[in-house]
């Protein structure tokens, strides 16, 4: 891996971010005049004009865009009329909770998905393999919110062993994290299995055997690092699904994170909040994708080779 590789990826990440910011601007302007939507229908034109001037909506679009971008660069994401506070403050307040839920689900996914995939690949064609693949089909097909409701029904209402909503203890975390992580774990398990199976048949695995490398060492030292590249891709790509999933899962469990905040803000037409949340999610995605790209370069030395470095 080299500096040029990292700089290229950094430039792309920056470009994506600019596009995301612009996209949010355009879409929110296209969704109608926020002033008429917010104020009562019988509001006098003078009041409407006053609000439009206050929010800069009376200026030409390019000027609004510059104002909006400069605002973002200064950390000004608009003002939440519902909370009567800067939108960024409202959003940042909720971030730790979503992070807690997201990271727990992510950790659960990695352990379950990688473990199940590894187990299935190494026991190909056996009961373990079939059971794992059956689980992944279940995980894929089950919509998040429905799984959530099902889990609440079983664990919170029938058996009464876990709370159905709220935050505070690890017990509150179990159901939402499992709900959020299941389909993700299924995807990771499938990819781990298939890419491992492919690698296990490569000639270099036979070389490792011919060299007398013990089984466990050959899996950890040779098979997994090679199988890791497609796995990292799917793990990285699906982090978006995790964030999207949070928007659906949080309301089900009354988990007060940014997902729930977004749903409420959309319902209340609190556009500044919507804008801040969407930008935050976009920013997270760009950062994650950048990290995934860097991880590739670290996992696979063949990526990011500059011409002339290969001395044949």
């Amino acid at each position: 891996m080299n500096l040029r590789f990292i700089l290229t990826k950094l430039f792309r990440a920056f470009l994506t971010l600019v596009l995301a910011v612009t996209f949010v601007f355009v879409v929110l302007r296209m969704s109608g005049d926020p002033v008429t939507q917010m104020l009562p229908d019988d509001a006098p034109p003078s009041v409407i004009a006053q609000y439009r001037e206050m929010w800069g909506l009376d200026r030409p679009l390019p000027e609004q865009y510059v104002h909006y971008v400069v605002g973002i660069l200064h950390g000004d994401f608009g003002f939440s009329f519902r909370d009567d506070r800067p939108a960024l403050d409202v959003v940042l307040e909720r971030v730790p909770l979503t992070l807690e839920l997201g990271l727990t689900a992510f950790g659960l996914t990695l352990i379950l998905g990688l473990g199940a995939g590894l187990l299935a690949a190494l026991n190909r064609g056996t009961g373990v393999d079939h059971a794992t693949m059956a689980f992944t089909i279940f995980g894929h097909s089950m919509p998040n919110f429905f799984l959530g409701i099902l889990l609440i029904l079983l664990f919170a209402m029938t058996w009464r062993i876990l709370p159905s909503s709220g935050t505070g203890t690890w017990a509150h975390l179990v159901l939402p994290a499992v709900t959020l992580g299941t389909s993700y774990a299924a995807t990771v398990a499938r990819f781990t299995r298939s890419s491992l199976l492919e690698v296990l048949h490569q000639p270099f695995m036979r070389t490792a055997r011919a060299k007398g490398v013990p089984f466990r060492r050959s899996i950890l030292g040779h098979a997994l690092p090679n199988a890791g590249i497609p796995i990292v891709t799917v793990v990285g790509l699906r982090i978006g699904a995790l964030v999207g999933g949070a928007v659906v899962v949080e309301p089900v469990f009354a988990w007060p994170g940014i997902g729930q905040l977004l749903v409420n803000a959309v319902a209340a037409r609190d556009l500044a909040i919507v804008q801040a949340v969407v930008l935050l999610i976009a920013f997270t995605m760009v950062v994650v994708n950048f990290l995934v790209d860097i991880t590739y370069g670290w996992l696979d030395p063949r990526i990011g080779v500059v011409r002339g470095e290969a001395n044949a």
Partner: protein
Amino acid sequence: MTVDVLERQGVGSAGALPATRTPPADTAPAVEPVLSIDGLSVGTGNVDIVIDVSLAVAPGETLCLVGESGCGKSLTCLAAMGLLADPVRLKAGSVSLQGRELTGLDEKHLRQIRGRDMAMIFQDPAASLNPVQRVGRQVAEALVVHEGLGMRAAMHRAVELLDRVGIVNATSRAEAYPHQLSGGMCQRVMIAMALACRPRLIIADESTTALDVTTQAQILKLMKTLQQETGTAMIFVTHDLSVVAEIADRVAVMYSGRIVETGLVDDIFDHPGHPYTRGLMDCRLHALSATSERLAAIAGTVPRPAARPSGCAFRTRCPKAAERCETLPLPRGFAAGQTVACHFSGPAQ
């Protein structure tokens, strides 16, 4: 009575034991062979791909296993290493390394022997190396696994090994990934890896086939030199007779899963006994002279193991084929230290 038993009796009554069973003094030293394969059969389901193959290699000796593609050379080697992969499996026979029986050993024990007492070099060097691991580390791994060295000490030895197989700037090349090296360079790395623990036997399966002619010559010379230095026994699989001439002490010619002729390299080249061996030699001569008046190739292809003719498998392509070829010819003495499995091969003059 099985074919195998018949064959042994036939050999006994012919009075000349094949070199593969009890090597006569003039072909192989009268010491215990490093590797001896006896009555090896390999196959899938009820199809035998390798049938009743017996071989022995003495310390310091190079045995070339010759034949067309698909005649079972590679499978014989993989079976010797215990590296057969499903659905191909060992059906009969024994493989013993320095007197220790390997068939029936579990994978764990085989892994302790592979790389330490016997090593293998494969055909495609670039694909045989782990693409995401530095080559020095891959060489060092054998030392870590078998000699319990720490990674630092093993890396030091790995650099020495890389230097010894003719890689210049071994210290910096040890840090390279396989894609940064040429094919010949990768094969040198594979050789260094095979040599790491000073094995008694090295099996090289078409190790120079994927390389260009110049590189091929360099690698052959290197292997020959290293073998003379270390006294390692070597089985060298190839379909290329010029390679055989270059490197072999003894030759075993395989056709459709069986060994049809064995002997010292000079004898095989001077007076090949089996029509198949003669055909191979003709192909070579014509390739050299480039004035092919008659068809230089052996007509037809190697039969698939499932569609192998009864008796002598070569009879469908053999210019001499007759009715008696429908019964299996037994290997018998042709000249001193040379055995041939053909009904028409009388003792050479």
